[in-house]
């Protein structure tokens, strides 16, 4: 892979701009959040070219943006944000990705590290048995093709109605765990068939569940609102998405959009950017199907939450109410949302694509749960498996600059092949064990492909978004136990 040689201009210490005239066809400039050191890393691959390509999308406003965790994706870069006007802009399934509503859920507990450490092996083993994970894993939940439509329409609410999780969980979930724009008729039978056996499964790739311990708190007041009170407190982080159902929705609509691109005469530099006007049949159908996949993912994460609570109660021999295990928040980081933002002083209805980016709304903004109205929306930023994760908050500056968006994770710097050659699965497990982290993984290959050296340092990513003011760091946690597909 050759380094990117394009034109980029420093705006300030944390902002770099690709001018609109870099490439004929760009409708807006590009903007990446990075410091000079991070930029050197980003330039080692072609992700900035992809950011420039996204600027071709009809109706794109502001800038084609990338967060510091940007890395080379397919079509869109991962870590990208693009907002298009609903009135004359497009929606692109590639701007959401295959894993629709891949996202993160955080639970807080009343436990401290010393209470969990002696039981960590038992706890992780029980979670590993209780939560179906791994490649091609099939779930314990039995739904048929008719019931799956209910899951797609009602999302996390379906889960609550079937005994998984509770209404308090919904209050602190993005969209309350259900996008009302969902229409199961717009989801193919093929997608539903993939979704039926996989509901309530963690999956593989970079998906995981971690038992974490709070190490640092940067904003005690805000942390307290989230139920995080002291270093040493135990948290649980769940990272997964819409599984095969979401992948199929994306694939189905990429094909639809491929035809739409020809019909509407849209010129694009990469087929994976295929799109259609937001206000077209194709655009509306995709958004209705995407909402179904997003709802499926919220139901999925809530089922996993339920089994997490079960395992903790069983192994620690205490009631769930005593253990805590309340949900702090749940964010989507692969999604497109219709939102109203101010563009050049005017209020505009936009389709905000966040692909590997997290919504980061400030205090007082609609869509932020009641409980967080005074501090802003929690942003959950998982590190790569086995490393630190961060909790942050949305800011006013994010709303003004990035359509209320910030980073989503560490961002890959090494291919899976290279990571695997460097680390053999067993070594990764023992390396983590040496750091006091107990891991259960279905596949050693998958484990070594997710080695920490394959990722940017999450600390750098979060520091840059904090310094740039597009999110505000609140706390940092480190894992003590991991389950992985």
């Amino acid at each position, binding site marked *: 892979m050759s380094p990117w040689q394009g034109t980029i201009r420093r705006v300030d210490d944390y902002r770099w701009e690709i001018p609109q005239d870099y490439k004929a066809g760009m409708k807006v400039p590009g903007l990446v959040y990075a410091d000079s050191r991070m930029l050197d890393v980003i330039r080692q691959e072609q992700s900035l070219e992809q950011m420039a390509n996204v600027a071709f999308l009809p109706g794109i406003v502001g800038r084609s943006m990338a967060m510091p965790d940007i890395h080379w994706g397919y079509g869109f870069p991962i870590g990208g944000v693009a907002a298009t006007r609903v009135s004359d802009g497009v929606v692109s399934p590639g701007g959401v990705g295959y894993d629709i509503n891949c996202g993160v859920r955080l639970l807080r507990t009343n436990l401290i590290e010393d209470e969990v450490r002696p039981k960590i092996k038992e706890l992780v083993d029980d979670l590993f048995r209780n939560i179906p994970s791994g*490649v091609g894993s099939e779930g314990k939940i039995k739904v048929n093709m008719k019931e799956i439509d209910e899951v797609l329409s009602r999302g996390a609410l379906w889960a609550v109605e079937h005994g998984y999780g509770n209404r308090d969980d919904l209050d602190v979930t993005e969209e309350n765990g259900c996008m009302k724009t969902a229409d199961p008729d717009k989801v193919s039978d093929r997608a539903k068939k993939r979704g039926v056996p996989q509901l309530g499964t963690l999956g593989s790739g970079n998906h995981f569940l971690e038992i974490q311990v709070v190490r640092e708190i940067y904003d005690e007041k805000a942390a307290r609102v989230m139920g995080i009170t002291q270093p040493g407190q135990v948290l649980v982080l769940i990272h997964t998405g819409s599984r095969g159902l979401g992948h199929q929705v994306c694939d189905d609509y990429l094909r639809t959009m491929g035809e739409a691109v020809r019909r509407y005469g849209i010129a694009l530099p*990469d087929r994976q950017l295929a799109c259609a006007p937001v206000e077209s049949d194709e655009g509306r159908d995709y958004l209705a199907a995407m909402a179904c996949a997003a709802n499926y993912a919220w139901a999925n994460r809530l089922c996993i939450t339920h089994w997490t609570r079960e395992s903790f109660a069983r192994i620690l021999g205490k009631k769930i109410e005593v253990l805590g295990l309340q949900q702090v928040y749940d964010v989507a980081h692969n999604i497109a949302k219709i939102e109203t933002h101010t563009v050049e002083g005017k209020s505009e209805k936009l389709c905000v694509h966040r692909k590997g980016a997290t919504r980061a709304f400030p205090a007082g903004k609609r869509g932020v749960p009641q409980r967080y109205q005074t501090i802003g929306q929690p942003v959950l930023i998982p590190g790569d498996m086995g490393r630190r994760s961060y909790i942050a908050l949305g800011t006013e500056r994010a709303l003004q600059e990035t359509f209320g968006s910030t980073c989503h994770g560490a961002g890959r710097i090494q291919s899976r092949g290279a990571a695997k050659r460097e680390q053999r699965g067993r070594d990764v497990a023992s390396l983590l064990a040496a750091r006091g982290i107990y891991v259960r993984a279905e596949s050693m290959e*998958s484990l070594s492909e997710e080695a920490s050296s394959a990722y940017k340092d999450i600390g750098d990513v979060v520091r840059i978004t904090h310094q740039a003011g597009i999110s505000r760091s609140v706390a940092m946690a480190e894992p003590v136990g991991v389950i992985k597909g």
Partner: protein
Amino acid sequence: MEKCFEVIDHTADIGIMAYGKTLADMMSAAAEGMTGLMTDISRVGNRLHKRTELQEADGETLLVTWLNELLYQYEVERLLFSSFDVKVQEGNRLTADCRGEKFDPARHRIIREIKAATYHNLKIMKEKDGYTARIIFDI
């Protein structure tokens, strides 16, 4: 039949280069290459036969649809294939006689889950001695 493939690295994901004397051979090599990313193909038997027929607007779309069809058959029907007898007509119609068996967790270990074959940088190149395609997978 001459065909082969090699695995290529991509930061976010993984891909393959597939080669074949004919378009059909290349499609077959791509299927073998992708299955090899998922499992040890030498451990997949051939007692089961399944015919797949597909048609698309062009060869590139056909390639992505073909590979995604195989992923679908694995996820939904739990079928793994070890051999692919592919015929392509007019560059955009594919008939494949696949031989394989039902996934058996006791004998088949799934190495990695592939979400989809993507259209990213997708290109089928016609060269003097055959066809080459590069396909990137989302995993």
